């Protein structure tokens, strides 16, 4: 029974989409440690189950696994309502799911591109639309979207991954502008390099942090109601630089 409430002992509730590994799994652990009841979603049942079981050991909160593929868009409104009913409310939603498929420098593969847009962007829209609607009516709530520094500019290595994250950034910005006056916080997280399987497709890496460190920084953004956060923070400078490199130079760079 996760829907039991005591008026003077409120327990926060969260949904984490993309919780079976990497950053999402670490965020689930962190939230459960902080006393949250967390609905943890992803496709791989076993991994999800292990993440939840580990998170629940001696924790103040509780993680509950839900097997789900974000590209099954039509199931999302019902699942969203079912989860809020089963966990007894919702304070935070974090969309972490994302895929980055390896793409050659001269490759134009629509199947791969479509797969990335479907998870990184359309899945986010399908889930966060539900949350936005609800939080607007509640007059409170926190939406977190895990995007990427890769969304800041279009680069040669991964055009559609970049585009999907850029689309996500713009969507989150628009949500923020819509919902701030309703008391809702929208946070865009832009990780640099985090030590997960996703890095396997990244050619050069530096400033790599652990998923737990990333989760701790996301949690801080949640506590402080921050809006756009580079993880780790020093990527803010890179972001700044990236934004200001004029296109005629950017075209000549090889990353």
């Amino acid at each position: 029974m996760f829907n039991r409430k005591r008026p003077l002992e409120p327990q926060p509730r969260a949904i984490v989409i993309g919780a079976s590994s990497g950053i999402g799994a670490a965020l689930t652990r962190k939230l459960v440690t902080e006393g949250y009841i967390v609905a943890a979603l992803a496709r791989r049942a076993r991994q999800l189950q292990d993440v939840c079981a580990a998170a629940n050991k001696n924790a103040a909160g509780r993680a509950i696994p839900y097997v789900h593929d974000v590209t099954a868009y039509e199931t999302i409104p019902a699942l969203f309502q079912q989860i809020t009913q089963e966990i007894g409310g919702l304070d935070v939603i974090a969309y972490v799911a994302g895929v980055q498929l390896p793409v050659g420098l001269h490759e134009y593969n629509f199947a791969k591109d479509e797969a990335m847009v479907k998870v990184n962007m359309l899945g986010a829209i399908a889930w966060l639309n539900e949350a936005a609607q609800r939080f607007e009516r509640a007059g409170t709530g926190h939406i977190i979207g895990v995007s990427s520094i890769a969304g800041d500019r279009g680069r040669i290595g991964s055009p559609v991954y970049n585009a999907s994250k850029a689309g996500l950034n713009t969507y989150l910005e628009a949500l923020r502008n819509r919902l701030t006056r309703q008391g809702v916080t929208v946070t865009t997280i832009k990780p640099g390099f985090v030590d997960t399987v996703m890095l396997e497709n990244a050619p050069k890496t530096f400033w790599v942090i652990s998923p737990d460190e990333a989760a701790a920084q996301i949690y801080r953004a949640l506590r402080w109601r921050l809006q756009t956060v580079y993880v780790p923070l020093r990527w803010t400078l890179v972001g700044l630089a990236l934004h200001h490199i004029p296109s005629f130079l950017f075209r000549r760079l090889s990353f």
Partner: protein
Amino acid sequence: MIQIDERRTRGKTAVLPPDKLERVWAWGGASSGMCYVYRPTTTEGLQRVFELARQSGRSVGLKGGGNSYGDAFMNSENIVLDLARMTRILDWNPETGVIQVEPGVTIEKLWQYILGDGWWPPVVTGTMKTTIGGCAGMNVHGKNGWQAGPIGEHILAFDLMLPSGEIVTCSRSENSDVFHAAIGGFGMLGCFISLTLQMKRVYSGYLAVETAAPANLREMFELFHAHVDHTNYIVGWIDAIAKGDALGRGDAHLAYYLPPGADPNPQLSLSLEHQQIPDTIFGLIPKSAMWMFMRPFMNNVGTSLINTAKYVAGRVGSGKRYWQTHAAFHFLLDYIPNWKRSYGPGGLIQYQPFIPKENAQEAFGDILRTCQKHGLPNYLSVFKRHRPDDFLLTHGLDGFSLAMDFLITDGRKPEMVRLARELDAIVLAANGRFYFAKDSTLRPEVVQAYLGTETIQRFMALKQRCDPKEVLQTDLWRRLFR
């Protein structure tokens, strides 16, 4: 190891319209929940909501006026069936004083409807915004609890809609077990869709009122003992901040119905216009702004000042006799709109224990001292006398109750929880009882202890009979009975 439940991995079919989702606040404002709120106006509309609940796999919580202080009408993430729009008076007989109403009729509408014919509701609450359905659901008491009993004693019959859509008629002779359990059953057995009540004859729009100012708890008890036999209403107000010899000091109001002939012009005093209270307080502050003036005093120091001033004024005016309209005597709080806002954004909760008369003086002394020890003296405490009754989940007993309002802030919550646990222990040790309408802090084990396993089993058996699929639920139900 957590098992992934197959059911959890598939979305259910029926999605409820997101625009039905509303934040529902506890009356005291200290907690809230998001609920899908439906406001039908007919019994068919009500049946459709139960049907929708079945299709969408949701539970249904019933809400009247929403005046319970805690989570009694809240049903987070599920359906709340708000009955406030079912407000028809179905039948009224000014000869016998028998009235039949829909559940959403408020005490306000009720007294305004019958007073001109020389009748008054036999039991009223401290606010007139409560509905008859909600009052029956909690089996409310008035300032005449030891004389008139709870409102259930004046209900002759009711129609109850079960979650299946079936309607059963209940009275003392028909389905009497359901009758005695649905009254006070906090909406867990079915929904009252019409209720028939007996009103009380009055011969004037006035009550004769007398004031007193007991100097401590002992004097307060002596006052009640001395007057219960010949007054119709008594209510005490306790300054919960006063300590030592003054512990339990306060004010008391005693009131009597006027006998026939005492009021020279009953037609006038029984008229509606005559019952209304002026728009400004002390002729200066508009009522609607009063809460803003109260706000700065809603802390330990401010309340201490106010309480002292109030006590001194009461002491000076002690023994005064005057006539006061029924409405003014019963519903003074309603004439300061939004007074609860003076408590600030964290709201307030109420804690109201009922203690048998043998143990009451000692237990209430302990309770007041314990609150002070925790630095959480309550800011408004109302003292009343009660009697036992034969409703299954009754809070009534031959003794006294003290309704205490506590200011809540995020910072105070943990201390309040600790305090409530200590108070629960005092109440249980004194053989006391609690009242769901006022509760925000009880735990299942405390409820088991004061109601007893047998009573709970009997209630559960009736629940099984009336609502086998457990469609009727509230946050309070899940908190205390699951």
